[in-house]
């Protein structure tokens, strides 16, 4: 008789799932995934949580069995398995939630009125600081259109303004999350560099303008 699941070592798990998974280990793993998914999805799902978690657990089991070679033993096996299940579940829930939301095209903010409204909601004791902040926001507003590519701009604003998840946006833009993260990182890097050049101040000094006192 196999040891109980709390006592199973990582190697026990691997041995019981490969080459052919033992039905007992598979059932134990399914039960663990189901309980984890139920707990973590309870607050996110309005409909039939039970059917949904069973579908996700099933998909996760297949993925786990196909990915055993990539398990590096840096965590407990069950933690690694639960990570895969969560990833599958949340990716699918994000897809369902966002699939009908269109990507926006953005126009440049008009200087003045809109930018000034931020400062009203954000009372600042020193008028100089407020003016410097406002100036910086205007600069960023122009740089978005002067320095970023159309693709960088669309992606950046879809995430920051519309709240689109990266994975969902990657699919819409025919790329993968990693490449999209790189694209966004390059965009931020470019803006940082241009801001430093334009103002003659370091990023740290510029950030200091926005720190609460």
């Amino acid at each position: 008789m196999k040891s109980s699941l709390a006592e199973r070592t990582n190697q026990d798990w691997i041995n019981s799932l490969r080459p052919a998974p033992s039905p007992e280990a598979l059932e134990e793993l399914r039960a663990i995934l189901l309980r984890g998914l139920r707990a973590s999805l309870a607050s996110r799902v309005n409909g039939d949580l039970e059917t949904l978690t069973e579908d996700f657990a099933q998909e996760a089991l297949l993925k786990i069995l196909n990915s055993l070679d990539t398990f590096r033993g840096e965590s407990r096996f069950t933690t690694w398995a639960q990570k895969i299940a969560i990833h599958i579940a949340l990716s699918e829930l994000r897809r369902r939630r966002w699939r009908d939301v269109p990507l926006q095209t953005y126009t440049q903010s008009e200087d003045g009125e809109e930018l000034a409204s931020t400062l009203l909601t954000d009372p600042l004791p020193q008028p100089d600081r407020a003016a410097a902040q406002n100036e910086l926001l205007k600069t960023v507003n122009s740089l978005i259109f002067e320095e970023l590519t159309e693709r960088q701009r669309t992606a950046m604003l879809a995430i920051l303004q519309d709240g689109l998840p990266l994975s969902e946006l990657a699919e819409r833009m025919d790329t993968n999350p990693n490449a999209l993260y790189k694209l966004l990182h390059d965009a931020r890097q470019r803006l940082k560099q241009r801001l430093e050049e334009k103002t003659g101040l370091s990023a740290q000094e510029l950030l200091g303008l926005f720190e609460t006192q």
Partner: protein
Amino acid sequence: MARIRSETLKELLKRSLSTRSDELGCETCYEKLDQFVELELDGKDAAQALPMIKRHLELCSGCTEEYKALLIALKQFEADNPQP
């Protein structure tokens, strides 16, 4: 055509100014997420052990969502399997 809100500009400004050349992508974060969450549950300083993961989580809402969900799932596992 949509207009950019000033809150968006402010967030973009802060994120741009905080950009570092050595950030990790989502894929690497995902690879290490199980380790990160376990360290945290074991009461260790995950942010110190894996600072780049911590930083990625601060910038990426999708990975943060999965991190939080995994924490809940693992706490459930601990509750189901109390250590002697």
